[in-house]
């Protein structure tokens, strides 16, 4: 069986690297993007099973990315987990409204993050082929 692929979108190279190591150690395939523009391009090219998305990004922040994903029929089915250093009080509801399925604040607990990822991947998503399990 193919490993699920996760697209990591973060402008900080160290954080991308750390998250990449963590996810690969847990048997996920990964791909990167470091700004809003390439996040959309990579999502189209790689067709990831899940996206982990930062909010503060150059060339289109996380909200722009969420909007663009929602507008595309093929991309709107990809679950997005927002992982950001920003204040949940101000951003949590906003990201969920914009279509994210979960909001985690950095630094996130590894177990919590993996749990959210696992749940998101197992979920039959509206419109997604029913083969997720």
């Amino acid at each position: 069986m193919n490993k699920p692929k996760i697209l990591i979108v973060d402008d900080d190279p160290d954080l991308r690297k750390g998250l990449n190591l963590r996810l690969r150690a847990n048997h996920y395939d990964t791909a990167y993007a470091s700004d809003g523009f390439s996040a959309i391009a990579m999502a189209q090219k790689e067709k990831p099973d899940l996206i982990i998305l930062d909010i503060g990004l150059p060339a289109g922040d996380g909200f722009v990315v969420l909007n663009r994903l929602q507008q595309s029929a093929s991309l709107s089915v990809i679950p997005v987990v927002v992982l950001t250093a920003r204040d949940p009080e101000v951003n949590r509801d906003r990201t969920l409204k914009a279509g994210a399925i979960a909001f985690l604040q950095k630094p996130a607990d590894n177990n919590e993050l993996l749990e959210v990822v696992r749940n998101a991947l197992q979920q039959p998503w509206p419109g997604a082929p029913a083969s997720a399990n």
Partner: protein
Amino acid sequence: MTNHQSHVLVIEDNPGDADLVRLRLVEGRSDLEVNCVDRLSAGLDALEGAPPSVVLLDLNLPDSRGAETFRKILSKAPGVPVVVLSGQDDEELAAKAVHQGVQDYLVKGAFDSKQLARAMRYAVERQALLTSLDMSRKQQLRFKDEFLSHVSHELRTPLTCIHQFVTLLLDGLAGRLTADQRGHLETIFRSVKQLRTMIAELLEATRAETGKISVELRCIRVDEVIRQAVTMLHASADEKRIGLEAGVDIRIPLVNADPDRLQQILSNLIHNAIKFTAPDGSVMVKAWLMDADPSFVYISVADTGRGISPEARALIFERLYQDPNAVDNSRKGLGLGLYITKELVRLHGGRIWVESQVGHGSVFTFTLPLFSLPRILFSTITDQGRLRRAVSLLTVEVAPLPACSSDQWQDARRQCLQLLKSSVYHHEDVVLPVPENASQQETFLIVAATDEPGAQAMEKRIAEQFERHTELRAKCEIKVAHTAVPLPEDGAEGSLEAQVQQVANRISELAMPAFARGPGSPTALEENSGLVHQPENTKEHTQ
């Protein structure tokens, strides 16, 4: 007088007094625009338009008397200076008005035009000063809030990086570790967690100051939250060989609290207790009821630590306070934990205090209001000291759709609550989430002061609002039902309190199917539905 003080609003019902004031005003200056009205309502209407430079206000008007009069004016136009025109006999009231925000007062018939002009000039100047003070205070708080929010974001990014790589190393993902290496990394990891807490506290404390902490009260079981908090902190207690135990009677009634905030209060207190207790000591969490104070549950966290000196005890809940004696062998925090804890308890309507004996330990105790249907429903089902003529109960069941993630479900529950609150008719109507239940479903009860057709219309309104809320509709489905609450006959026996109690009991009976699904069993609810205290509940856990 400056040129912007050109428009005076006189609110005075006695035509003679009004004429005299007008005369005195015009004597001093010819370019004044004077607007006289003889009712408070007309005065309030006049304040809708361009604000006057000064209001001259008689306190006893046909449609309002005494303190009520100036309070209404002040709340309508908080930035407009008010000078009270008082009679000889109510000078005391006028003086009280000055304490509560009125700028000055003059006794009618005892002032000339110069005195009047001076009173008005000073009133305007003082008001301007106050307004600018208030503005700069608000600006400062806002600046601080924004600054801290920004700083905490910037601090979190490098902290995240440290967190990530330390955990990678600790989990052996970069190769095997020696015992020493592991020990050192664990030390770093502890500091990372400490930093994370401190950053969160910084933001939380600013929020407490600006009144932005949100507390969502609902009916919950306190024993469960205590157990969760104790389980969460067991590891850190074990590390120090400190015994951590909870003594809670499961028969303690339901409380009206925010489960996440209660968790936060408890973990702050337990965490502190562990921190200031030497190895082999113990920490005990208890909950009990007090005969003398039957509307509250008492919760305490007791330790066998070093204790707190009387001087420190007086200041311990203040912002940024740190016990100077606590520095020696434990690391300092920011001194915000107990301040936040106190604010959270206060927002629940409870109290918190500490008792301590130096060298023997400390006991932090706080109170939380018990969930009491009669108390919550009192103003819904009564009006001017009598039961209302009609009361309805609506049950709204909300269930998540299969595709809804747990974060989205939390979000959906909040949005539903908002939607329901905006669908009720009066602000006395109560929307009540049913005690946390295990099932992935939420039930809200609405108790509304309305009759059968009103309830029917409300039910329709909720369904329509839900239908329009495409975002919510994508996450969950709802089922609404309504029923009239049977009320005692007009002129029925018993005090109002007893009648309210009776109605509350009926409501809980009607809602029982919804309540019975939750862990708050019917018995727990019955106990809770009374304002009456059950002393037998206290026996087991006060020893």
